[in-house]
Structure formats: structure tokens, C-alpha cells
């Protein structure tokens, strides 16, 4: 299923800023989707990895003066190791227990952000994070950031599609369907789950670092439980187990608040309602639900046409 998305050129302005976020959210949604949609492991704490990437990159570049291009992989590496270490015990759990454990993990990370004021600046956030520079171009405007972010996002999408259609991807889906059966067939499910958890964390961390360098200011508020839920909503609405679905979900949920400008506080209700409605009526997400809907309508038209 080859989906080539060509980023259209919009005339500058506010929309560019929003589209940058769509890119970052797509990356995050894909990361979560790898874990949730393909491998079937629930994680309610992904905002934590996003935040860790952002903060580590931010701190390394501001307090220690590291080059952003070195800080990002460093941050990703640390987050990946951390996720690997935590992944081993946490992924023994299943279902609700895993959900709660990841939720707790996410909240612990959030509290650490808030409390370690000397490093992170606490609730007032960390500012002065430098923009990325490449070959003399400083990515300090929305347009330039847009291309940067979407370049990375497309790379992540291609990578994930590749992964999903490879041996690893099939093994993941086998684990999702029935872990014991997969193990019987020779899939080392334990290591696989930890690997995918770590990979998901690394992608989220990368997104976080990019976020930090584009925004130049981060604060713990963006990395809390609410954002984890937003990510979950994006993945569910877009469609579990579909890379393009993650893009749809991310796009929808990033653009939606823009259309509901006046209703700033209502967005949380809409997320909740969307979650409930989607799970009840379109468990496959939009990416499968909309074509199915069209098919149903077409079928009905066909019947009445012939009757």
C-alpha cells in the first residue's frame, strides 16, 4: 500500500505553524501506532518519551552547549536505553495492567520534569533552545521548519511502512494476535516487544527533540497525561495498525482545535466523545471506516437501483 503524500505549498502564515505540528504529531502517532496497532501493546505514557527527548535535547544544548545535531541522537539514545530497561519488566504485563503501568510511568516522568527545577526550569519551562542549523541555513521560520519536520516525518513513515511489511512487522502482528502462538512458532516475543517499545520511544524522542528546536521553548505542561491521551486518540481515530491512519488521526486532531477556536476548553470533551464513538462504531479507525462507509452506501444505492 504505497501512499505518497506530497506536502503542498501553502502561503506562509499561521497555517504553516499548524502544519509543522501535524508533522510532529504524525511522527508521534506513528511511533505509538507501531506499539499499539501492530504489536498490540497499550501505552498511555508516550508523552513521557516525547518530553524526555525534548528536555534532554534542550538541556544538552542550552546548559551544556552541545550542537543540536549531536544532542538529538544522544537524547534518542538515552531514551532508547531507558525504554529498553523499563520495557523488560513492563512488557510482561498485559491489557489493563500494562495500560496502568505506562500511565504511571508517564506521570512519574511528568512529575520529574516539574520537580527537577535546576535542570528543567520546572513548571516555567526551558527557553532559549537553539534552532537547528544545516549548511548555513538556520531553521528559524515556520516555512523552513515545515520542510525539515516533514522531511523527517516522511522518512519515519517510509521506515515504518517498510518495517510493517517486513519479517519484523509480521512477527509483531503475530504477537498481537496471539503471543503464545507466536512464541510457539519461534518468535522471541519478549525481546521483540522490548525492541518495538524502545523503537517507539526513540521515534518519540526524536520528535521531541525536533519539537524543542523548532519551538525554542518547552514546558512540562505539553508532556502530561492529557497529551498521552491525545496521542492515543489520534492513533485510534486514524486507525490502529495503519501508518496512513496515524497521519489522518494526527492531522485531524491537530487541525480540529484550530477550527474550534472559540471553544478552547471544549476540546477535551470532544476527544472523549470521539474516543467513545470511534471505538463503538468504527473500531478500525477512519482509515478503514470511511471506505467501508462508502462501500455500504454504494451497495445500498446498487440495491435500490436494481430493485
Amino acid at each position: 500500500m504505497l501512499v505518497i503524500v506530497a506536502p503542498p505549498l501553502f502561503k506562509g502564515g499561521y497555517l504553516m505553524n499548524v502544519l509543522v505540528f501535524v508533522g510532529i504529531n504524525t511522527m508521534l502517532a506513528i511511533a505509538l501506532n507501531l506499539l499499539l496497532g501492530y504489536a498490540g501493546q497499550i501505552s498511555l505514557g508516550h508523552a513521557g518519551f516525547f518530553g524526555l527527548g525534548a528536555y534532554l535535547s534542550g538541556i544538552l544544548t542550552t546548559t551544556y552547549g552541545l550542537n543540536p545535531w549531536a544532542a538529538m541522537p544522544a537524547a534518542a539514545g538515552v531514551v532508547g536505553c531507558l525504554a529498553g530497561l523499563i520495557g523488560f519488566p513492563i512488557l510482561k504485563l498485559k491489557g489493563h495492567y500494562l495500560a496502568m503501568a505506562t500511565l504511571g510511568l508517564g506521570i512519574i516522568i511528568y512529575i520529574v520534569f516539574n520537580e527537577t527545577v535546576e535542570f528543567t526550569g520546572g513548571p516555567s519551562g526551558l527557553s532559549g533552545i537553539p534552532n537547528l542549523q544545516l549548511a548555513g541555513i538556520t531553521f528559524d521560520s515556520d516555512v523552513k521548519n515545515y520542510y525539515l519536520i516533514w522531511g523527517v516525518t516522511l522518512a519515519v513513515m517510509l521506515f515504518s511502512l517498510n518495517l510493517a511489511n517486513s519479517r519484523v512487522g509480521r512477527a509483531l502482528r503475530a504477537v498481537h494476535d496471539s503471543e503464545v502462538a507466536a512464541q510457539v512458532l519461534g518468535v522471541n516475543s519478549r525481546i521483540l516487544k522490548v525492541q518495538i517499545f524502545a523503537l517507539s520511544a526513540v521515534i518519540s524522542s526524536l520528535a521531541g527533540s525536533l519539537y524543542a528546536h523548532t519551538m525554542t521553548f518547552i514546558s512540562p505542561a505539553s508532556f502530561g497525561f492529557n497529551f498521552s491521551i491525545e496521542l492515543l486518540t489520534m492513533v485510534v481515530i486514524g486507525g490502529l495498525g495503519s501508518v496512513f491512519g496515524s497521519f489522518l488521526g494526527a492531522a485531524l486532531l491537530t487541525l480540529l482545535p484550530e477550527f474550534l477556536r472559540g471553544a478552547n476548553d471544549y476540546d477535551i470533551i470532544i476527544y472523549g466523545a470521539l474516543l467513545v464513538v470511534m471505538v463503538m462504531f468504527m473500531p478500525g479507525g477512519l482509515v478503514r471506516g470511511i471506505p467501508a462507509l462508502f462501500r455500504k452506501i454504494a451497495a445500498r444505492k446498487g440495491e435500490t437501483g436494481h430493485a
Partner: protein
Amino acid sequence: MQFDQILQYALSGLSTGAIYALIGIGFSIIYNATGIINFAQGEFVMLGGLLTLSSLELLKLPLWAAIPCAVAVSTVAGILFERLAIRPLRQPTPINLVIITIGGSILIRGLAMLVWGKDTHAIPPFSGDTPIAIGGATILPQHLWILGITLVTILINKVYFYHTISGKAMRACSYNRRAAGLVGIDVKRMVLFSFIISSAMGAVAGIIVAPLTMTAYDVGVMLGLKGFCAAIIGGMSSGISTVIGGLILGVLESLGAGLISSGYKDAIAFIILLLILFIRPQGLFGKADSERV
């Protein structure tokens, strides 16, 4: 000096622990009857407190009438939740259930935010606020109310589950749903009952703790999670183990906050949760679970 401090922390930890125990029992009841972890449990706690507030201020009811009123409305919310969100679910996989209960909890929280705004509100304590001295520590009368009401609720629970037909039927459902259905128990009605009892208990918990810690539209998240933690420590039982789990959690959290650092108070509870889940997921008192493949 040191001992008095520790005693103080321990005592206040006991009463928060009692609240966690009540919420945890709510989790366990639903889980035992349906296999669902109701992420929205904390929201019923929140509703209890906020509804009492409204009954007191808007309807001008006296406290002893406001409380049953609030509990009743919360229970209705619980019934609605079960009817609208849980029952019509077509694919009850764990992921879907988690997502739908999370969605429901967000929805309830959002509606509460619309109705009551984002401020914290205070409810007057049940019987004044002159502190009582015990040893070198002091507690408030509200603490006694909390412990007392928790005790009564647990006794009522015990009586219901072990000495009434419908209670025994619910226990039957938790052991084996199909068998229970085969002997004539209406499993769907038991599911409904479990939600009723849990939301009522949650509301009571919210009401008795509100005079101490104020109430707002978002207290449900933390309380719910910690109640869940208590339930896990107790092995998801709806009896004394969860109570002990809650008390342990409350005391540990209080001691940790007092002796180590108060900013990390919530983190301590979650670290305990993670440790229990890693080391002994069946709780301190439960038996290990086996899964049919």
C-alpha cells in the same frame, strides 16, 4: 519529635488510605463482575464531591440530605455510563475497553468542567474542624468520619456480598460468567449492579474526602489511579485485602511525602504501583493468575 512527626504522617496517611481503599474496592467490584477496569472510576469520586457542593449551594439542602442526593445522581451517571458506553460495545477487546473507559472518563471530566468550572471548591467539614490530639499528632474530626464511614461501607459490602442473594450472584459472576448464566443469573443485570455499587462507593469516597482536600473537576484522575493502585496491591479483591492495600499505599505515600519530598508525592504512589506490577502483579494477597490460551 521524630516519632511525633512519623505518627502524624501515618495517621493522615491512614485516612487518605481509607479513601484509596474505597475507590479500589469500586475498581475491584466492576473488575470482578465484568473483567473491565473502569478508568472512569475516579470521575465518580469527583462527581460525588461536586454534586454535594451543588446540592448544598444551589438546592440549599442541609448536609444530611445533600449527601444521599449526590450519591444518587452519581449512581445514575454510573448507570448511564454502563448503558451507553459499555453495553453496546461490539468488540470488547482489552484495548477497546481501555480506550472506551478512558474516553468516557474524559467526557465526564469535560462535562464537569463545563458545569462547575475549573476552580477548586470547598465543602464544609461534617462536624467542625477543631483538631483532636492523639499522642503527639493531631487529626481532624473529618479524618474520623472518613475512617468511620469507610468501615461502615466495608461492613455493608461484606454483608451484601456474602449474605444476600444478589450479592452471591455477583460473586458467582466473578468466578465464572458462563456458569453463572447457566444457573439462571442475569449476568447483564449483575454488570449493571456492579456499576451502581461502584459509582455509589466512589461518590461516597469523594464526598467524605472533599472537606479535607477541596474538590475540582480534575481530582478524579489522581484519585482513580491511586485507588487502582490500592486494588492491585490487594489483588483485585473486593474485601479486606484491598482495604489493607489502600491503607498501606496511603501511609507509604504520606511518609514518603513527609520524609523524602512533598513534590514527588504522586510519583511515590506510582513508583509503588510500578514496583507491585513488576514484582507481584497479583497483589500482596492474591493468587497468581493463569491464562487460557
